[in-house]
């Protein structure tokens, strides 16, 4: 309970007028950022527990950690960069079916994506990460591409994908 209370408290502080309008001084903006990050990190633990609970009916994580990648807007998810295989769990918070486009930053262009339920290969497209994004000084990623595919999400549902790196030969054949 205390975990989500911290974000509630920090959001309360940020509802002060200067945070809403962006008219705070720079050192205050920095403090607001720190407060938000602290609150969000606490909430992430709650989200992870919820996902663990939801997914336990489908498969066991065997204490394998789950994590989020908040910097995917600048094509960065350092955690998955070294993985040959990983899984993606998606949760749709809307009470209706939605179509969404998944974009995962990856180092190489040779990945295959499987739908966990149907075990079918999913059609993907590779998109280059352009130089302008690579030059963002805060970006530490080595990802050169975004791996993109279409995902249809059930209302309030969970969708799982398995992502596997392949040999370049197999990737060229697939292309």
């Amino acid at each position, binding site marked *: 309970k205390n975990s989500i209370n911290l974000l509630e408290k920090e959001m309360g502080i940020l509802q002060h007028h200067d945070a809403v309008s962006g008219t705070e001084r720079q050192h205050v903006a920095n403090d607001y950022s720190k407060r938000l990050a602290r609150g969000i990190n606490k909430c992430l633990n709650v989200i992870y527990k919820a996902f663990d609970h939801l997914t336990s009916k489908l498969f*066991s994580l065997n204490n394998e950690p*789950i994590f989020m990648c908040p910097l995917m*807007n600048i094509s960065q998810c350092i*955690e998955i960069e070294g993985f040959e295989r990983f899984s993606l769990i998606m949760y749709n918070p809307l009470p209706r079916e939605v179509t969404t486009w998944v974009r995962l930053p990856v180092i190489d262009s040779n990945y295959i994506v499987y739908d966990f339920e149907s*075990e079918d290969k999913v059609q993907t*497209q*590779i998109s280059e990460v352009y130089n302008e994004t690579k030059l963002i*000084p805060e970006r530490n990623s080595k990802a050169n591409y975004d791996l993109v595919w279409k995902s249809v999400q059930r209302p309030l549902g969970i969708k799982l994908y*398995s992502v596997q790196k392949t040999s370049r030969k197999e990737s060229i054949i697939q292309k």
Partner: protein
Amino acid sequence: SENLNLNNEHLELNFDQNGNLINIKNKHSSVSTPLKQFYCIYESMPGNNSESKFQASGAYVFRPMKNSCMPLEVREYRVQNGPLFDEIHQVYNEWISQTIRLYKGEKNAEFEWQVGPIDVDDKIGKEIVIKFDSDLKSNSLFYTDSNGREILKRKRDYRPTWILNQTESIAGNYYPINTRIFVRDEPGRINRNNALRQLTLVTDRSHGGSSINDGSIEVMLHRRMLNDDALGVSEPLNEKGSDGKGLIIKGNIKVLFDTVENSAALHRELSHQVNNKPLLIFTRLDKNEE
């Protein structure tokens, strides 16, 4: 040497030989408009910090020096086609670029923008907007969801509850945007498509925005100034990144173009999706191990 276009089942975007967007067409509704999309730079009023009469543009106040902005054209571009989406990546200058993306089956076009670090080596503050100029007969009207709950009608140089003496022809017409802004052919205005059209922008964050001319929409993306507006902050709006230069920011705007009749359902649904995206969680475990 030929004109370019991005196409899917619903939309067609046409570009000139230099990579500038010039036209949009909705194939289902058979409506189209010349659509010039570009980036524009307002010079910030440097002001005089001790008198509000010469107030500087700053954190509280958007106050451009002139009543027009400096338009930028595409300097270089690259096109990428594929089975799921087509995109054109456009570079406007050293610190403004964008990718226009059209996914198969989607009724909107995505404009992914990146702005910064804004160059102020010339000692001039700058405020960067993205502009969409169409031929829609909007009759001085535009619409924003400024209070986050409902769409509010806005009229240029007008306030519904008092007689306005407009002294700031740009900033005086700016309004907050939470998730969307649109212009449309107002009833009674004749257009060559024989249908009332609507151009809607769905944003991924709050902005300021306006319609300075009929059929036009502009959205403020990024600002960097060198003077304080003398309203209490006592420092210019000049945030810097980890490299000591101005911030680089990145976001996207989804563009819908359809008839007025169809648009409301489209932008409501799209805005829900943009603001309530699926949560993505990763784990190293994969299906074989499971």
